[in-house]
């Protein structure tokens, strides 16, 4: 999909293409505008072009075609050191031969700031990441999380308007990662900076971002706030890439507005919302989130189509129960049930009927 660049965009990609070898395009006609103060995440599998986009924005790769604008100015030919963009790298890239203080002083020294001003800024930046007492340490003496904080402080110490983050939390363990997600988000809110964040971790993208751009095959598949992305995926790639997802293949039998009746390849009829399969008789892939699948008739809308299912396995996960069902001939259909006091306990082999609200089943491209 394409988003027409807004005139007030802080960062704008306009028809940007990138090829490394002159044979294949890594980024295909990218159009993206990022508002001032926005937290935008580029999410996608490896090789989807998201890091290339970030590197073009930072100035380490040149766009083969198209324009990249920062604050309304074309920066295609501006060298990286004149772009004034802060960057946090995946491996932190803290200079190992300098102390933490010297690392932070580096961007200020090359800008010709005086000693007093440098020290004030360094202190402020270190306090910001709660590392005030570490200025004289070497990066090698710090833990991964501490190094990450210093890298963050270094990218922020010279007050850039735009900060790029290239999978900055990839090397941290889960707990620390979640904690740092919160801190980065908090810094973004309090400093009012614009952040472009690259990750392949969808959880990270959903929790931190104002908007998420899902990349695949060199294109943005969907650009939307996290809730829209999860609840209203626009194509089957996004539906499958974000969160857990049940897939049902079929053809569109009836179409009234965006209400669709889909006949599955095994013959059953189900209700769905037509998203980008808008042709009667056309093939479609219906996507349903496991937590939106119901098996109690009272939870389904009146007159909803139901479909026969057989319980294959029940997995106890603490807060939820996960039922693996055999539906429409395949046994990979998942249903999630809240582990409440009155919850009906299903047993393997049990035959049930499952259904859903039509707006939760999205008929997408096959």
């Amino acid at each position, binding site marked *: 999909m394409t988003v027409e660049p807004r005139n007030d965009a802080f960062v704008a990609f306009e028809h940007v293409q990138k090829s490394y070898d002159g044979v294949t395009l890594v980024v295909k006609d990218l159009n993206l505008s990022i508002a001032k103060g926005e937290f935008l995440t580029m999410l996608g599998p490896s090789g989807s072009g998201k890091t290339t986009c970030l590197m073009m924005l*930072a*100035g*380490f790769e040149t766009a083969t075609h198209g324009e990249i604008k920062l604050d309304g100015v074309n920066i295609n030919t501006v*060298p*990286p*050191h*004149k*772009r*004034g*963009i*802060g*960057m946090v*790298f*995946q*491996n932190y*890239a*803290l*200079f*190992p*031969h300098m102390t933490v203080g010297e690392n932070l002083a*580096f*961007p200020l020294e*090359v*800008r010709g700031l005086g000693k007093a001003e440098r020290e004030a800024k360094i202190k402020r930046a270190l306090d910001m990441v709660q590392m005030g007492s570490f200025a004289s340490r070497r990066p090698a003496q710090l833990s991964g999380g501490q190094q990450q904080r210093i890298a963050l402080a*270094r*990218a922020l110490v*010279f007050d850039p308007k735009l900060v*790029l983050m290239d999978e900055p939390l990839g090397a941290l363990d889960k707990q620390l990662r979640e904690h740092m997600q919160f801190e980065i988000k908090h810094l973004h809110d309090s400093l009012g900076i614009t952040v472009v964040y690259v990750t392949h971790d969808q959880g990270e993208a959903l929790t931190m971002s104002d908007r998420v751009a899902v990349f695949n095959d060199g294109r943005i598949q969907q650009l939307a706030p996290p809730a829209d992305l999860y609840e209203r995926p626009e194509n089957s790639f996004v539906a499958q890439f974000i969160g857990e997802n049940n897939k049902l293949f079929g053809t569109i039998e009836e179409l009234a507005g965006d209400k669709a009746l889909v006949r599955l390849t095994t013959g059953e009829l189900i209700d769905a919302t037509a998203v980008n399969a808008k042709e009667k008789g056309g093939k479609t892939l219906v996507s349903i989130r496991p937590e939106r699948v119901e098996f109690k008739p009272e939870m389904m809308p009146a007159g909803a189509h139901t479909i026969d299912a057989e319980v294959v396995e029940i997995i106890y996960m603490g807060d939820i129960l996960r039922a693996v069902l055999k539906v429409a001939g395949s046994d990979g259909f998942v249903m999630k049930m809240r582990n409440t006091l009155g919850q009906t306990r299903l047993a393997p082999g049990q035959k049930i009927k499952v259904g859903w609200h039509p707006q939760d089943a999205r008929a997408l491209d096959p």
Partner: protein
Amino acid sequence: MAEAATELLTTADGRPLKAALAAAQSRAKRRAFLLVLPLLLFVFLTFLVPIGYMLKRSVEHDGFAASAPALDVWFAQNPGFDPANPPEEAFAALVQDLARMQTEKTTGIAGARINYTVPGTISLFKKAAREAADLVPPYKEALVAVDPGWARPALWRAMASASTVYTTEFYKVASDRKLTDDGWARGGDKERIYLYLFVKTFLISGLITLICLVLAFPIAHLLATLPLAKSSLLMILVLLPFWTSLLVRTTAWIALLQEQGIVNDLLVGLGVIGDDGRLTMMYNMTGTIVAMTHVLLPFMILPLYSVMRVIPPSYARAARSLGATSWTTFRRVYLPQTLPGIAAGSLLVFILAVGYYITPALVGGADGQLISNLIAFHMSKSNWSLAAAIAAMLLAAILVLYWLYDQLIGIDRLKLG
């Protein structure tokens, strides 16, 4: 808790923990030691023993002491004799020893030993030894009649010194001192060849190290950053010299740089220089520097490469994104991180250059000789002790450099690839 910590820890059956640990590991340790034993023996036999032998030779020479027992005794009993006027007993002992040398055919060895410190004395010894049996007292006058050289104080000083097996004379000669009639003194300006060559060797080696560093740095950087297919090709080009004989490479430089060589022909052909103005780039210092730089370049490239290879490109990117120009990035971020490689390569090239023999010998002519060529010269003249003394001084100088390196940079930061 504090008391428990100081208590001796024991195993479950009451043995001290330390002893139990040592016992448990002793077998593995013995096996590991046996595995390195052949190497230890090899290093000992082929490296430490020859060096020790060399050091011993530099302070020991029994050529005279073993052939002149009577003089040995006399010198030992009269340590404070006057070399300008040795007494009759000394001459008597000398004649006795000369006669003995004649019968035992050791005149040459003894004469050569004295000849090292007082040149031109071998003939003196040979002539006197032939007539020694027929000489009659007073021996002083008799010997001086054979050759007036026997009255020279320098000769007597030399014999007194040579009458003991151990001596520092060779080190004195190697530091440009000579034995005069009044004792050891500094040689004249033109005779000071050893220290001059030492200084020259170190300066030239430093220059070659510098040229190698300047040439190797970009190559190593390319090697470390090019895509694999191209960097492998480049690596082969770097290693190619290792697979060709040193003689072939040096001879190739002769073909290139001599007066009728390719480079001169090309320059004349292009009209840059006239046919009568052909450059002398071979058989002088230029030839030595060019050929040695070529030979030693890989020793600079490889340590640099090994260090540069592990510097992630994200450091340079980080520096650029923080606002540094490419020059500042190089100077403040990249260069400091290559320092262990620069230090290792420089140390390696410098030490190799200081002891280099074959290239200066082949292409250096008279002007391009280094200290190792002088060592080889003395070995060829069978003056092993002097050669050993110069070599020991070279070794000492290198050890001092090594120590300095350790103090300044730290030997643990050395990365040789």
